[in-house]
């Protein structure tokens, strides 16, 4: 993968798309093969790799008892570079994803789509080069998918890298969008 490129992984259910993403993010150890970030094995220099990684899994990683802003602040505090005005950045990010009206509501009262939007806002605010997104368009409405697309455009324009699994067709710049079909290799 090179900067400014997006890789979309497609394939039939159960063919190992999520497993591939978990291996790439370092959550799962591969049975064979190695994953490199730049020159380094990701398991050798795990801290340096993780400082560059934003991962959005099946579960968006929100605590049901906290509201979206509290959730995002906690998660962003786990990073190595925390913005000085975290409060307003989180507010802006949530505004952009269209969930600011529900900011003071615990996440248990949000719909699946709203939670997914909060997850996307978190990835965006992490401000790191590598995004690994597992079905980011899940539960999103048309408007949400449009927003996601726009955010991914911006990230690629800033020389980011995106690896994602989705069955959705994304309207990404043609030169920077590749597709990997895991179904094909198995015949």
């Amino acid at each position, binding site marked *: 993968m090179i900067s400014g490129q997006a890789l979309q992984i497609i394939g039939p259910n159960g063919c190992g798309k999520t497993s591939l993403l978990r291996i790439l*993010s*370092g*959550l*799962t*150890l591969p049975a064979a093969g190695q994953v490199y970030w730049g020159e380094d094995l990701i398991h050798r220099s795990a*801290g*340096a790799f*993780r*400082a560059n*990684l934003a*991962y959005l*899994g*099946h*579960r*968006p*990683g*929100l*605590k*049901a*008892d*906290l509201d979206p802003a*509290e959730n995002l*602040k*906690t*998660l962003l*505090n*786990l*990073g*190595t*570079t*925390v913005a000085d005005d975290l409060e307003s950045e989180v507010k802006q990010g949530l505004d952009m994803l269209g969930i600011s009206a529900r900011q003071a509501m*615990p996440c248990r009262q949000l719909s699946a789509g709203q939670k997914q939007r909060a997850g996307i806002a978190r990835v965006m605010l992490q401000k790191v080069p590598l995004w690994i997104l597992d079905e980011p368009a899940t539960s999103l409405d048309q408007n949400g998918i449009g927003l996601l697309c726009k955010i991914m455009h911006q990230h690629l324009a800033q020389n980011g890298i995106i690896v994602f699994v989705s069955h959705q067709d994304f309207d990404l710049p043609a030169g920077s969008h590749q597709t990997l079909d895991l179904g094909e290799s198995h015949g």
Partner: protein
Amino acid sequence: MADHDLSMWSAMWSVIRRDLLISFRERGDILQPVLFFIIVVSLFPLAVIPEPQLLRQAGPGIIWVAALLATLLALDGMFRPDYEDGTLEQIILSAHPLSMLVLGKVVAHWLVAGLPLVIISPLLGLLMQLPVDAIVILLLALLLGTPALSLLGAVGVGLTVGIRKSGVLLSLVILPLYVPVLIFGSGAVHATLSGLDPSPHLLLLAAFSLFSMALCPLAGASALRISVN
């Protein structure tokens, strides 16, 4: 480097603050271990002959066993909710040392599930007819010993968090590790009751807690990585 250290502490602090905030919003969950502790201990005077002499002899042991069980009851809450909602993955993917974040989770857990047991223990000491000096030692022993219970527990929960219905397995893994805390903890109170110096027991308890604090976050971090693999 100093900057990096600072952000590590702030990451750890944000984990502690988040867990305390969640516990505060789910107040019913905090009360459970304490109520369990009180009820288990108060069953004994009802079940055995309520002879002050007998209660005094058995009291320290009963209180400590009940404290172990109450801790065990609350342990699963340390990582399982995080595992289920995906926040554990985010914690593991943090660039900071996972062991420090695990230590943060243990600190928050002890404040919510361990400290209340320590605070309520004098009341149970009175129930067990313990003299005042023994109650003071009981309080001290629990204060020094319960952190080790939470720390060791983190390793056990880390290992079993990926398993459904892991309650019994967790007890089998953890309770044997709690034995030293139980022995020195009740030993300190027994020593006071027999007019001996309890400080060797207390010092050993403190040493055990410090030892756990050095090793358990590392072991817990490895266990968690294996569990989410």
